[in-house]
């Protein structure tokens, strides 16, 4: 199975098994990592699944939609490769993607 490599807020990094067809937010949540509120369940309305993609891999992803960019603009501590985890559809081609969970508010 493909894996998503996640760095949590305590700095620990670990690979998570990732089913294709789920979003990065769902992969993180379903693996028991409890750092994303993901309040709106992926409806682009809350900005609480903020992750930072490894800059070396950011270009491998489809770019954020205008609405995602607008939501990111409203967040604190945004990095150049910030994304909303709910908007990254995980599939086999993203095996080994590295993301860091953004600092919490």
């Amino acid at each position, binding site marked *: 199975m493909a894996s998503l490599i996640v760095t949590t807020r305590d700095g620990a990094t670990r690979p998570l098994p990732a089913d294709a067809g789920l979003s990065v937010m769902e992969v993180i949540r379903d693996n028991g990592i409890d750092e994303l509120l993901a309040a*709106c*369940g992926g*409806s682009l*309305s*809350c900005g609480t699944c903020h992750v930072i993609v490894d800059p070396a891999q950011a270009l491998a992803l489809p770019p954020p939609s205008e609405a995602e960019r*607008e939501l990111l603009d*409203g967040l604190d501590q945004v990095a150049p490769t910030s994304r909303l985890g709910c908007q990254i559809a995980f599939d086999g081609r993203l095996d080994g993607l590295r993301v860091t969970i953004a600092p919490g508010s």
Partner: protein
Amino acid sequence: MSGATVSDYDVVIVGAGQAGAQTAIALRQLRYQGTVALIGDEAELPYERPPLTKAYLAGEKSFERLLIRPAAFWQEKAVDLRPGCRIDAVDPAARRVTAADGTSIGYRRLVWATGGAARRLDCPGAALAGVHSMRSRADADRLASELPTARQVVVIGGGYIGLEAAAVLVGAGKAVTLIEAQQHVLARMSGTMLARFLEAEHRARGVTLRLGTAVHGIEGRDGTACGVRLASGELVPADLVIVGVGIVPAVAPLLAAGARGSDGVEVDAVCRTSLPDVYAIGDCATHANAFADGARIRLESVQNANDMAGTVARSIAGVAHPYYAVPWFWSNQYDLRLQTVGLAAGHDLAVLRGAIDARSFSVIYLRNGRVVALDCVNATKDYIQGRKLIESGADVRTDLIADSTVALTTCLQSECRPPMRSRI
């Protein structure tokens, strides 16, 4: 004494929806060490309700994807999940709750997070087969099981639930009629500008809207609904009827135990009810809301459920903060992304920003020169920036806010006066 039916916990959470589940999650995030029970009357693990009338109804998302946390999470966090258990009595003196089957559970602190039950129509035929509410997974699955043979669907109620269901069902090829008693849809939530736009969208997609139309009753044939009789006498044929006319807060056991409240249970700034060590949160909690000018309201939303869960968890963990959170809501209908921030009730001015024809605009609601809410349609930037205006409490340049080429955050014209926080 039967050990199987008597147990005690430091925290008993009644209601395993968004608010209850998030309370348990937040307690463990705060490293609360006490024992926690999460009791729900549904058979399921805690799940997100909003998709029930959107992606789940449309068949685009499986139920597993609606789970707030996977099954293993609750065990890992030592949260004792008790699904399928309906609490129907509270004894605040003995600090125990009792389930319908007699199970008795003791608490040091009780968190009441039961939300509400779908309001039923009070009319002939309301209990016929083929008449559906849309509050739970079971409701949605029952509806889905009858959909394949249904051609004509009548939706009663033009709130978010009714509009979202109508959008999905007309998209699935059903002939949909939506009946609303008020003169416009979303009458409880929004102004007429947004309502008129949404009405036109739904009509353009093929939904028949019957506004200002009262229902007399539901007609049946062999015990199953076959049509909706209007007050005018007209019969609208229906193979299936969906009722989306709000919820009734599920607070009867608390009120019977002496908690103050009527439509919901009253809570203070940290979500305490009038009963000792009994809290209430989410849809069923009547609270003074800073973003409603301190008026006592109930808020039926994921935002309120999550943020009140945080408030009560901090209180239990010994780091109390008063509840203070800008309300926000969302809805998806067709390709429209509706986002609302703030509370429009009591506004004295509504300003259109952007172009309705382009299907990207916002309606900005003001009271006394300050922005109190925005309804944003495919306009996330306004939703984000408008929130800052609401939080600021500052006067705004009403001559500028209509101009979508001017950033909303540059429209302030006085010092910031954020809405008052309550004291604990």
